[in-house]
């Protein structure tokens, strides 16, 4: 390899992995994570340089059988994702130095660090792969290393369930990818991604479907999303940050890598857009109902993957319709949202991890008042929330604005399908707009319930601020959220992405630095006027809030998370599908004297109960039948051999 920064970065990561695999001491873990940090720095510099310079590098590295070879390719797309991965790991590695030390056993702590490094390494190489073989190899390495991290707290029963869900879904995803790559090989004679361009239109459609389902499962698009809300709460928070922030994007990368290499068809765009809209809306609707802070963030990841897919769908539709400018805008929006979501979701997961670490609970009902005990974490969480809620001038606002711009410009669509497409885009736009609004509500709820008011439990009362290093780890993505927001227009110009800024193109993205300046000045003026001319000029009096005549305020009087989302739950009752059940027992035989009763409102897990479990049960039944063939008796096996020989004879005689 002739790229010293890349080679150095990857070598440091491998060194870090080996170090914590081999030696189980705190110093080794710290050094190992330090190496991760260093390697992330090198790789960020490398990727930024590649993105800026627009060079392309092909690295034929190792071939051990003729079609099975490792080869790597770096262009702007892969450089962009390398940048994304390394920026997130920059923060996560610092955060993890203190975070991993929470565990009891030395061996497990070291294993945690080693697997995390391996996980990062495999994700990087997936993104760099130039052919299907190396892609699948590192894809599986990525899945397996993250699987071990999901099952990290294996004593807990929910970890087992989460790991099972994750394992099955990720294997299913690999099956789809496998069939696509095998198809590529049989048709072009090579696993090389450049072969995608040579496929016939029909073969291309099958490859697209196969790859899309494979990547949609891994990215967690509805209805393949179910593993996400299980896997994220089960894994340690730094790993959730990586999985949600980065691994989902690796799947998006795979999809983009394919789509950019081929000539797409219109229905692909419609399909991707539909999946994206559903994922976005359902993701945020489910998140609103959730009271587990990490599971809530997982649902929010589903929503954001939906937004990214909407961007990709728009890109495909505009590209097929010949609107290159709009296609570029949508693609840039999708790509930028990938980066943004990686930044703020890893920040939020890390901050949530700090909260869980300090309070010992993930349940929002048991939190509250943390802003007094953990002010810095609260500030960082607020930055993440503001970004994900897409408020200006943060980065989330920019990418969502770009998507809105693309939607609004869809009137430029022309041609036979245009009426249909316009209706579709309006529907999708309304789902998208609703999603944005609900996402803002969601994070008002999470931040308010977690950090404001009074502590609801003793655990929340006892919480203290986390160590400086953990805060620093979160500060990196937080700062990047602000900076990429403020300088978004400049970044796009700097990296020369095909979006016209202020140059008479159909859609423009405003200069956030300017918007940010205006906002700053406005806030300053409001603050000054309130200070100088407000009612507080008299003596300040501190009294307890009016408590409806009660003597003391109690945390149970606070706005609860369930109460906050209740109006929305009522509106979306059809989606949540609750089930009411009650039972009563009586003391006498005439059912007159009431003795005991229970009533329960249960949320039906729609996808799990109507999609996943029936499929699992069907598979189970078939497996039982097949297992019956395996009866452990010699005679039966000889019979099978006999029948196989007969069948083979018949086959060769009449069919071969």
């Amino acid at each position, binding site marked *: 390899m002739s790229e010293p920064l890349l080679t150095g970065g990857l070598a440091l990561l491998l060194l870090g992995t080996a170090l914590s695999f081999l030696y189980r001491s705190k110093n080794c873990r710290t050094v190992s994570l330090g190496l991760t940090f260093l390697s992330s720095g090198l790789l960020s510099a490398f990727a930024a340089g590649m993105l800026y310079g627009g060079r392309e590098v092909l690295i034929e590295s190792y071939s051990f059988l003729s079609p099975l070879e490792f080869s790597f390719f770096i262009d702007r797309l892969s450089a962009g994702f390398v940048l994304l991965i390394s920026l997130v790991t920059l923060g996560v590695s610092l955060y993890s130095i203190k975070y991993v030390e929470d565990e009891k056993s030395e061996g497990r702590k070291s294993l945690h660090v080693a697997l995390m490094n391996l996980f990062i390494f495999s994700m990087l190489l997936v993104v760099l792969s130039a052919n299907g073989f190396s892609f699948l190899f590192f894809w599986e390495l990525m899945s397996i290393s993250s699987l071990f991290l999901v099952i990290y707290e294996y004593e807990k029963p929910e970890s087992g369930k989460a790991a099972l869900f994750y394992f099955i879904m990720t294997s299913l995803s690999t099956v789809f990818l496998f069939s696509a790559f095998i198809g590529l090989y049989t048709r072009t004679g090579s696993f090389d991604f450049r072969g995608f361009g040579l496929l016939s239109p029909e073969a291309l459609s099958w490859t697209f479907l196969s790859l899309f389902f494979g990547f949609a499962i891994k990215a967690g698009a509805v209805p393949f999303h179910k593993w996400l809300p299980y896997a994220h709460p089960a894994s340690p928070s730094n790993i959730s940050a990586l999985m949600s922030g980065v691994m989902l994007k690796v799947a998006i990368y795979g999809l983009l890598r394919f789509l950019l290499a081929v000539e797409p068809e219109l229905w692909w765009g419609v399909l991707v857009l539909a999946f994206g809209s559903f994922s976005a809306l359902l993701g945020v609707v489910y998140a609103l109902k959730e009271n587990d802070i990490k599971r809530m963030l997982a649902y929010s990841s589903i929503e954001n993957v939906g937004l990214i897919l909407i961007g990709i769908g728009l890109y495909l539709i505009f590209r097929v319709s010949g609107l290159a400018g709009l296609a570029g805008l949508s693609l840039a929006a999708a790509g930028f949202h990938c980066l943004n979501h990686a930044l703020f979701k890893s920040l939020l997961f890390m901050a949530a991890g700090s909260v869980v670490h300090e309070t010992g609970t993930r349940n929002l009902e048991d939190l509250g008042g943390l802003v007094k005990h953990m002010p810095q974490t609260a500030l960082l969480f607020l930055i993440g929330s503001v970004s994900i809620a897409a408020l200006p001038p943060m980065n989330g606002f920019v990418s969502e604005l770009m998507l809105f711009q693309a939607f609004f410009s869809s009137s430029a669509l022309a041609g036979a399908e245009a009426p249909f497409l316009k209706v579709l885009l309006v529907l999708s736009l309304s789902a998208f707009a609703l999603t944005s609004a609900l996402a803002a509500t969601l994070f008002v709820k999470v931040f308010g319930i977690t950090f404001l008011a009074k502590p609801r439990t003793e655990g929340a009362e006892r919480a203290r601020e986390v160590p400086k290093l953990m805060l620093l780890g979160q500060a990196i993505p937080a700062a990047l959220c602000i900076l990429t927001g403020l300088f978004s227009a400049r970044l796009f110009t700097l990296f020369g992405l095909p979006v016209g800024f202020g140059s008479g193109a159909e859609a423009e993205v405003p200069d956030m630095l300017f918007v940010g300046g205006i906002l700053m000045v406005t806030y300053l003026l409001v603050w000054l006027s309130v200070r100088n001319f407000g009612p507080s000029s008299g003596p300040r009096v501190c009294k307890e809030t009016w408590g409806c005549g009660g003597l003391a305020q109690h945390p149970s009087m606070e706005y609860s998370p369930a109460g906050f989302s209740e109006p929305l739950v009522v509106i979306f009752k059809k989606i949540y599908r609750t089930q009411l059940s009650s039972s009563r027992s009586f003391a006498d035989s005439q059912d007159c004297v009431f003795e005991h009763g229970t009533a329960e409102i249960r949320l039906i897990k729609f996808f799990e109960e109507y999609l996943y479990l029936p499929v699992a049960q069907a598979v189970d039944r078939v497996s039982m039948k097949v297992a019956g063939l395996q009866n452990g008796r010699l*005679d039966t096996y000889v019979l099978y051999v006999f029948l196989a020989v*007969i069948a083979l*004879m018949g086959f060769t005689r009449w069919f071969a």
Partner: protein
Amino acid sequence: MITPGFTDPLFLEGAVRILFVFVLVTAALVISVRNLASLLTTYTVQSLLLTLIAGLLYLIEGSPVLLAISVLTLVSKVLLIPFFINRVEAKIKISRDMKFNYLEPTSSLLVSIGLVLLVYVFLSGFVGELALGRLFFFGAVIGLSLTLMGMLVMFSRRKVITKVLGYLTMENGVLLFGIFVTELPFIIEVLIVIDLIIIVLLTTIFAVGMDSTIEEYRQKLQRLHIWPGREYL
């Protein structure tokens, strides 16, 4: 008086054809006979028939390998192996194998007829490629059928000793097929015979511990914790 010319190829070929019929008869007996002593006799006769076929073929073709095979078969399969199995049968004190799996003898015989027909149809598809004479084609059909019938014996009968005889029958089929079609190198034939003898020897050794069906033998092993195999339904 006209004395028949024993070296007349036509006569020899006719004799081989007659022997084929006898081979099929012995195969049918291996499938259906319940008495172990008769079963062993049947096998011995079958091997003797093979010896004769190889010998007659030597007279027709004149290839010394065929003579060698004939002698080898005589020594190993007519004398040595039956001798060992006889010892086993004496030791295990059972004389009859009454139990059958999957197929009863009557249906087994019907299936065997079907097998011969199937093999005939199967091989007739390859007559052009193999370039065989009519006798040789016949021999190939009988050989392959005998192999499959041996396999049928292996899964349809319960006693281990019968299974071993089924395996030996299979090998006889392979030998027959080899003589008529592929011309196995002699060394391979020798190796196969050595394998067979070792199998029979092992059977002799196991007979000490294994005196009935394979299920009971496995239960014995399970009791001794030698084999943790699990019984499925």
